[in-house]
């Protein structure tokens, strides 16, 4: 039985926070299980609560790169869902959304611009309460891992396939991954460990066994079923869905969640999981900033203040503030306290609570004129971290300035 640690809970919306364990009746025998995907749509919709259109949930799940989507992920504390279902197609999403509305779990309203907004109905809230223990939502860390998890998994799959074959001197297998970057990594990795395949695989066994023990039996089994080895090719997503009597979207999402879960543990305790950590140790998640923002970011990292950067780049200070607000979306170590004092932060948070709004203008009207739009934008991104850790101001996040 797995009990989530404090760190696992960071990304869990409040209504899951009293989750301590989850029971084993996850898999029923009869009907195809459709749970996780629906649960995720409901959970995300609950957070957004009609402040954005229904399709913003779609953009969240596929990990749309535009600033609005990323900012919304922060504002509504949906970071953990960001980009967890990249291959999701709009028609499928719409179909599921319609189905949830039809079953009365979501209420739909159409706003003045003709866009569909959804909120979780009373029935939907009951559904979430009833099923929350079975929804492994705390596995997901989308904003952090959406790219890394894929690279990690693809590398691991190819390493396992390669090593289990080469240790038997079997070199003529069809690789399950063809991706130049992954192939090159595995080639190097192989040359480094050539001759020690057996040892490496044994260590890998110990580490994976220890990690998978923290999951449910069926989850561990499903994760393993997808790997290919010596004269053995793993199951496709559809085969897994049939085998475990689950909806294929749920299979996909659950596997993604498991990978995020594993990756998180590997990174936190990398000296316990050296064989696995070696698969991803070199990887740096690319930061997707626009060209100009990237320039500002590099200067900022070198210790220049926003005013100095504006001068150097001959840009308006407002432009630099725009850049910094964008950077804050991606950089978890962004030194927010250099720009917002504890007092100002509390004033902004209070205004947000009072107005129940995330609109810049509405909040601006409610706070002292000395507080800028820039500071409000930063607080929109950092509100949840602040609320969680603000009482005992964490020195890492809120400590040192630039």
């Amino acid at each position, binding site marked *: 039985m797995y009990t989530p640690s404090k760190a696992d809970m960071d990304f869990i919306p409040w209504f899951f926070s009293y989750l301590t364990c989850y029971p084993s009746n996850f898999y029923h025998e009869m009907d195809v299980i459709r749970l996780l995907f629906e649960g995720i749509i409901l959970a995300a919709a609950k957070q957004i609560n009609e402040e954005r259109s229904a399709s913003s949930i779609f953009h969240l799940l596929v990990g749309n790169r535009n600033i609005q989507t990323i900012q919304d992920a922060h504002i509504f504390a949906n970071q953990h869902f960001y980009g967890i279902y990249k291959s999701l197609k709009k028609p499928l999403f719409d179909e599921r959304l319609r189905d949830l509305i039809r079953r009365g779990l979501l209420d739909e309203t159409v706003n003045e611009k003709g866009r569909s907004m959804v909120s979780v109905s009373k029935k939907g809230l009951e559904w979430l309460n009833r099923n929350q223990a079975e929804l492994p939502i705390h596995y997901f860390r989308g904003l952090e891992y959406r790219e890394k998890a894929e690279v990690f998994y693809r590398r691991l799959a190819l390493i396992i396939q390669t090593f289990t074959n080469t240790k038997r001197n079997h070199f003529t297998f*069809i690789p399950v991954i*063809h991706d130049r970057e992954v192939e090159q990594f595995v080639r190097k990795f192989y040359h480094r460990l050539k001759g020690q395949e057996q040892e490496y695989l044994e260590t890998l066994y110990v580490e994976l066994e220890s990690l*998978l023990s923290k999951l449910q039996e069926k989850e561990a089994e499903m994760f393993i*079923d997808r790997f*290919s*080895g010596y004269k053995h090719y793993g199951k496709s*997503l559809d085969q897994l869905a049939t085998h475990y009597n689950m909806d294929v979207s749920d299979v996909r999402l659950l596997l993604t969640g498991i990978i995020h879960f594993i990756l998180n543990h590997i990174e936190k305790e990398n000296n316990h999981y050296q064989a696995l950590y070696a698969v991803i140790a070199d990887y740096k998640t690319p930061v997707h900033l626009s060209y100009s923002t990237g320039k500002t970011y590099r200067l900022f990292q070198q210790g220049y203040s926003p005013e100095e950067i504006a001068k150097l780049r001959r840009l308006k200070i407002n432009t630099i503030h725009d850049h910094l607000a964008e950077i804050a979306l991606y950089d978890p170590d962004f030194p927010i306290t250099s720009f917002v004092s504890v007092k100002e932060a509390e004033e902004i948070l209070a205004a947000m609570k009072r107005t129940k709004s995330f609109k810049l203008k509405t909040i601006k009207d409610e706070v002292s004129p000395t507080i800028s739009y820039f500071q409000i934008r930063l607080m929109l991104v950092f509100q949840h971290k602040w609320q969680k850790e603000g009482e005992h101001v964490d020195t890492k996040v809120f400590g040192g300035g630039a």
Partner: protein
Amino acid sequence: MLTQKYLEEELRKHFRYDSFRTGQREIISDILQGKNVLGILPTGSGKSLCYQLPALLLDGLTIVVSPLISLMIDQVNELKAISYKRVATINSFIGIEEKEFILQHLHRYKLLYISPELLQQEKMLECLKRMKVSLFVVDEAHCISQWGHDFRPDYLKLGKIIEQLNHPPVLALSATAPPAVQEDIVRNLHLPQMVKHIHPMDRANLTFVVEHVASESEKYEQILTYLQKISGPTLIYFSSRNQTEETAKILAEKLPDVNIAFYHGGMEPMDRIHIQQQFMNGQIDVVCCTSAFGMGINKEDVRLVIHFHMPAEMEAYIQEVGRAGRDGNPSMCLLLYGPNDWHVPKTLIENELPQAEEIRIVMEQLKGLATQSAELPSKEWTGTIHEFFQINETKWRFLRFHFEKHGMMKGKKIDYDEKQWQAVYQHLVEWIRKRNIHKMQKLGEMVEWVNTVQCLREALYNKFQSGYSQPIFQCCSNCGIELDEWFSEEKPKRVKTELDWRLKLRKLLVE
């Protein structure tokens, strides 16, 4: 240097085969002497070896143009698996970075697979022009012919590209090209002096069966009967992706001891490899698939090929049943035919090329643009150009090709001339009408074959060649077959042992 012994040694060294299959050595020998060759070899006879071996022996780059991306990817994988490393593929599935990498390191490769669309790109051609191209291969060469079963307008530009590459020796290959199509290939490539190697396409080990059914559920019953009587790896072809999934599900319920999966082009790459290789590896017995499956698959012992839907023409049918019995042992090709089964291919034919009304609307829009800026939309339009005209990509590529050919457009520039445009419109409409009639005739032939009371083998092969070999086992359902004589082994019950996940992990990694 080109002695038989030398070629056989090279074959053994690189491919670990002891001898050539019919036709291969003659073609390779001609290629190595710098001749232009047209090779018509039946499916599964090892066509690709005819350029894979020369590519290694010649000192420049061999370019292979192929319209089938999955086939290219499969072949590259297979070659890499046998340590044939200096091979790459450029197609629309690979990323820009990978494409750049390949183009910058072209000298590292002996063999480059490329799709016809990408070969048209100016930059691509510039890079290739700088290379020494020692052989230019046109795979699936029948695609160049309007009368072939898979016409691709992009193929018509190959003649010009060969010219721009300074006339390297050309090898054109096809499995299904009747004489009229062969002539088209030679003419469109501008290579009248091509040496022809035409080999008979009939396969003596195949038994042809057509079952007429009254409903879809009867098709399922038939499938169950045949699967129980004939054991061995089986492919079931469908014309719709959804139906591969549905049927796989239904069959899996009825036959719990048989491992059944489905495969189609909409699956993600890793899953496609999983299913293909499970089939190669004997982990699954039956694959419900679309025609996307099997192209690059070289499984020798496929015993049964079932067509749940009839293909639109005999050529396609011959190609698909050609995946059965490559090991030479008796194999069965079963076609299931229901009362209205010709509707689907008919609709596909009608929608393949633009209809008169669509052409008219596109030309109207173009005319509008011509009077404004005389250019195709670029900046203000963020979507693709075919979306602008609201037609699908294939149709737009077809129209663009013809508009350019008639000087109505060049790159982004549009040149309006009322009289000429009117003539082009008339010409295209007429051309498409003729082609659709032709396609419908091909479909008619297929339907006729399905309904014939004559010997199916004779009726099938006589369209393509004179004469055929006698069957080694049962001939066809019209000559009479005896299902009970087919090889059917009592399968050892698959012991579906459910291993604990720890044992599974142990088995995967350390045993």
